[in-house]
């Protein structure tokens, strides 16, 4: 349990009403930029053990910080910089008011700047700490890079965010460390494994944002300030580990050495390079030329017993991962213009596939639609006019499902105009007793290498079964009718004599008796539980029961849905007949 060593709390949330002189002086100093400092330095409030004691008898909800944390904030050199900046703003305003334009110019030139490098170093003393915490930074950076360049924040911030996120994506492609992708209704989730750390981030779908009014963008901007710094340093280091040039340069040998024609139409000269980078279609330049087949084989250590098993398991996982990394290798994909280009290009390139798009869609396309070697054409519309015979026309979900399934799924279910199979979350790991959707079971079977049964057969079989059921029902009905007749006859005859039937020996079910005995023992033992333990036990059991209930509910829902679907199909068939 975490214990708070020094119990000097004070809260620093307006309205500030501190009676202690000592704390007032501190609070006055920090109050103005308190929020910003707390965000940058990673200071979070604490829940005091005795809330009432600290809060002077009141139970009103208040935020408490440790006094030592606040003292720690005061030692931060950046406090001085903030103060300087505040003074600068005041002076500038005055100069504007007096229309001293030269003064304004001079002040602007000498605008005080501050750096967050030391804060990053202090918060993340080791590189791996920083990588572990990069989740939120990525999500925020990707979000900011989608903002329009007017209004909510500085253009420089947006540009920086865009640059950093493109750098990150390029790194993920180069290291092939993407693991899972999920198309949710909120956006697209990506999960990568970087230096052994699982990192998840979300990118919103490409739409203009409807900026909410109840969001404080200053808070977000402060976070972004911190996150861009963090992400920049992390990117730098990551590029170093792969011997890539930072800031990223396109590989000179690639197709990009030749200037494409429409380039000038697409972007300004100054921006075209960054645009090409963000097209994600070319590999990056390396400081040390990459040697093929560099994969160093692991040294084999003689191991015994459990270690051996562990080793084997690890090797197996590694093998699987290596295979997954080469998932799309050898495939040549073409993106139609209505599919999310960036996401698909990113995912396909992460798994070694070749990808291109229409020249007019974006800069950096590598081959045309007419290329005969294209294997898959990704389309997100019901039909397409001109179709080439030697390629599959598939919907974008196929790519994502393949990545999550770690195998190339059969393309039949993803053809144009076909109702797609459900898209499952790759992040759900079902433990025992959880509900597993049938699609997941199917996928697991595929992964194991079992061949899926042809659906038509299944259906036919099912139908046959159902017919059998009908027959059974009929026979049952007949039985019942017979019984009713017999009874009627009996009633009419009224010759019912009291009969004594020989008693039957109840077979003693030993298993059952044993079980019952055990159950009773348990019930009695539960009676003797201590109050605290009983409470805990009840809580756990309640949770378990709820879990089971939810799983059952889902299963029942699915069954009802399938049944209704089947009935519909039958009806249709009958109509056809």
């Amino acid at each position, binding site marked *: 349990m975490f214990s708070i060593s020094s119990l000097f709390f004070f809260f620093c949330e307006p309205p500030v009403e501190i009676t202690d002189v000592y704390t007032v002086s501190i609070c006055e100093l920090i109050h103005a930029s308190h929020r910003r400092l707390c965000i940058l330095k990673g200071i979070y409030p604490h829940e005091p053990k005795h809330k009432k004691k600290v809060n002077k008898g009141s139970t009103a909800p208040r935020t408490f910080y440790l006094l030592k944390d606040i003292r720690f904030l005061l030692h931060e050199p950046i406090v001085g910089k903030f103060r300087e900046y505040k003074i600068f703003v005041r002076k500038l305003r005055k100069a504007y008011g007096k229309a001293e334009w030269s003064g304004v110019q001079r002040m602007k030139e000498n605008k005080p700047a501050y750096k967050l490098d030391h804060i990053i170093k202090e918060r993340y003393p080791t590189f791996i700490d920083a990588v572990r915490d990069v989740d939120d930074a990525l999500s925020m950076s990707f979000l900011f890079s989608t903002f329009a360049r007017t209004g909510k924040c500085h253009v420089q911030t947006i540009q920086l965010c865009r640059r950093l996120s493109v750098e990150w994506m390029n790194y993920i492609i180069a290291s092939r460390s993407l693991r899972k992708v999920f198309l949710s209704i909120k956006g697209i989730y990506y999960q990568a494994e970087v230096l052994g750390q699982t990192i998840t981030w979300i990118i919103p779908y490409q739409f203009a944002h409807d900026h909410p009014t109840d969001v404080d963008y200053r808070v977000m901007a402060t976070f972004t300030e911190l996150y861009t710094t963090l992400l920049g340093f992390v990117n*730098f280091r990551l590029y170093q580990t792969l011997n890539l040039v930072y800031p990223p340069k396109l590989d000179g040998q690639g197709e990009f050495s030749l200037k494409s024609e429409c380039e000038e139409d697409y972007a300004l000269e100054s921006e075209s390079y960054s645009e090409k980078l963000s097209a994600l279609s070319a590999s990056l330049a390396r400081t040390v030329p990459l040697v093929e087949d560099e994969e160093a084989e692991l040294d084999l250590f003689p191991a015994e017993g459990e270690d051996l098993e562990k080793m084997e398991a690890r090797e197996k996982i590694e093998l699987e991962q290596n295979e997954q990394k080469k998932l799309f290798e050898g495939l040549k994909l073409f993106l139609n213009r209505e599919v999310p280009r960036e996401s698909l290009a990113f995912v396909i390139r992460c798994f070694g596939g070749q990808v291109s798009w229409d020249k007019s869609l974006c800069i950096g396309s590598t081959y045309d639609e007419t290329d005969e070697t294209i294997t898959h054409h990704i389309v997100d519309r019901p039909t397409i006019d001109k179709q080439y015979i030697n390629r599959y026309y598939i919907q974008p979900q196929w790519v994502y499902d393949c990545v999550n399934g770690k195998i190339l799924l059969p393309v039949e279910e993803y053809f144009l105009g076909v109702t797609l199979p459900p898209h499952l979350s790759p992040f*759900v790991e079902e433990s025992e007793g959880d509900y597993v959707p049938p699609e997941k079971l199917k996928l697991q079977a595929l992964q194991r290498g079992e061949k899926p049964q042809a659906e038509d057969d299944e259906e036919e079989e099912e139908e046959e079964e159902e017919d059998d059921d009908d027959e059974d029902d009929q026979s049952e009905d007949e039985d019942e009718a017979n019984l009713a007749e017999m009874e009627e006859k009996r009633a009419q005859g009224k010759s019912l004599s009291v009969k004594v039937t020989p008693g039957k020996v109840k077979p003693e079910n030993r298993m059952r008796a044993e079980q019952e005995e055990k159950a009773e023992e348990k019930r009695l033992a539960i009676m003797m539980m201590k109050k605290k333990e009983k409470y805990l036990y009840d809580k756990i059991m309640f949770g378990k029961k709820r879990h089971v209930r939810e799983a059952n509910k889902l299963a029942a829902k699915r069954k009802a849905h399938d049944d209704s679907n089947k009935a519909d199909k039958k009806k249709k068939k009958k109509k056809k007949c």
Partner: protein
Amino acid sequence: SQTKKSLFSDPRSVWFISSPSCVMFLWHTVKWADSLLIFITFSVRSQDIRNTVGNIPMEWYKDYPHIGYDLEGKKIFKPIRNKDELDEFLDKMENPDYWRTVQDKMTGADIRLSDEQVDLVHRLQQGKFGDVNFNEYEPAIDFFSNEVMIHPVTNRPQDKRSFIPSLIEKEKVGKLVHAIKMGWIKPHRPKETTPQYYDLWAKEDPNSILGRHKMHIPAPKMKLPGHEESYNPPPEYLMSEEERLAWEQQDPEYRKLSFLPQKFACLRAVPAYSRFIHERFERCLDLYLCPRQRKMRVNVNPEDLIPKLPKPKDLQPFPTTQSLVYRGHSSLVRSISISPSGQWLVSGSDDCTVRFWEVSTARCLKTVEVGGAVKGVAWNPNPSICLVAVSYDDTVVLLNPGLGDRLVCTATDQLISSYEEPEEVKDQPVQWAVAEGEGHEQGHRLILKHPKAVRQVTWHGKGDYLACVMPDNGNSLQVVIHQVSKRRTQNPFRKNKGLVQCVSFHPIRPYFFVATQRYVRVYNLIKQELTKKLMANCKWISSMAIHPGGDNVICGSYDCRLAWFDLDLSTKPYKVLRHHKKALRSVAYHRHYPLFASGSDDGNVIVCHGMVYNDLLQNPLIVPVKVLKGHTITHDLGVLDVTFHPTQPWVFSSGADGTVCLFT
């Protein structure tokens, strides 16, 4: 001179100069052609009738006969104007110059404009210059050009200040110089040479990690999305209509899902998520405003929480099955008691009868009617006396049922009849009377009239003393102890604290237990003092039983608890059992076997193994061994009384359904 030229370069001024008297008005009137006409008239006048009123609104002279003054100061009278509308009209029709005739406001005279003047007016109306010959696009001549002229433009002598150094400037410069010297002013901020990003972790020094970093709690990562968040989830994750309505009505804070699961046919159809920025913002708020705390997740197997107890099988014998039901009472059976031999059972019921049963056959041998609902029955524990105490209303009757050994019965009768009145009669709180007549035939021997309703009767182990409880709040007389052989009654307590629920004698030592609502007080009868006060930790004690060893007490309470006290251990319960669902009505110990039972309103009798060891260091072992069910719940009442057989491991229970059950 040059200045003059500039002044007269304006053609309009040139024109005005011809009428020198009007130069004064020049600037006011340039723009208004209308008022210009006035000046035109001046310039044309042959005779010099000049109005000297100046540039004033002429309507000031509207009401006067004159219109101003001439140069000699004489009034200029308005010309007689007697033209009416008709004349005006005729004039307009006939006079060809009517259109070019204007009235001079200053003199009131009509003036006919000449051709040049008309032309001028036309030109001004068109926005042209008055002078026909004026070229408005003449090339500009720069005064201050690069050509050096021989004459200066102005011939003004230079100011003195132009050749004396400025003090103010000196001061300013001095300040700047000082600031530069002190390094306050720098021409340019030195440019940053370090790149924006570099290898920050080049020198990872584990020693530089702050102590506070070890205390730091990293923020938990965001929850990963489940199947229901998919753009194309399996159908079972979509909400039905009712679920959706319920979701919408729920407070957003308490919703399990923060969004409505939706299904889209294709990726193209997925819209933007409107709360994306909100969610990011909320995450930011969580990161810097949420108190963080390490919480140990309880990761226990619930099976481990269940205490390991010896198996009930190993603790036999104990009653397991319902073997006999004693039927006969028509109302709830409040109390039962068993004869010391274990052969007979007596039960008292609300139907105003006391029934005697043979235990082994469940036959009702005798029914004695009494004058009220029976609250308590108690068989004398002394095997040499056959006497049963029955309490109803405010009366306690001692019955001799006449069952069993006839010698014993007659001996009992003799014992009662051999009583001799003492010489000095003491005033007693209770009236003793000998039953006679019909009552005597039924078995009534002694009738004790109490001042209040008696709830419980209990015998001392020797069988001579009988304690009665008359619960009454705030009255001193709540417990009385009768001595049957001497027909004497004592009131042991001058004052009772609280409402007495039940009393009991210690089986061996001269102690007396009194249970009030919350406490059990133990009195030493010889020393006549309070020895112990047991805190039951419950709201309302209903019943109490003393272990035959005398060192342990169990208390049942109306708030579903059974408290086991170990008198040697503490005044607080050694163990509290909450195994009943409803109020406990009765508890009982077995005389020989380590068993105790409790009956409750939920209709169950729970038999527990309660082993008391002779070793003082070992705590009693309590194991519930059996839940016995046999009574139906009537009027929310289940089991009212339980009692053990004196020799066998059997338990009797009486219920609100009017039956008594035997479990063996």
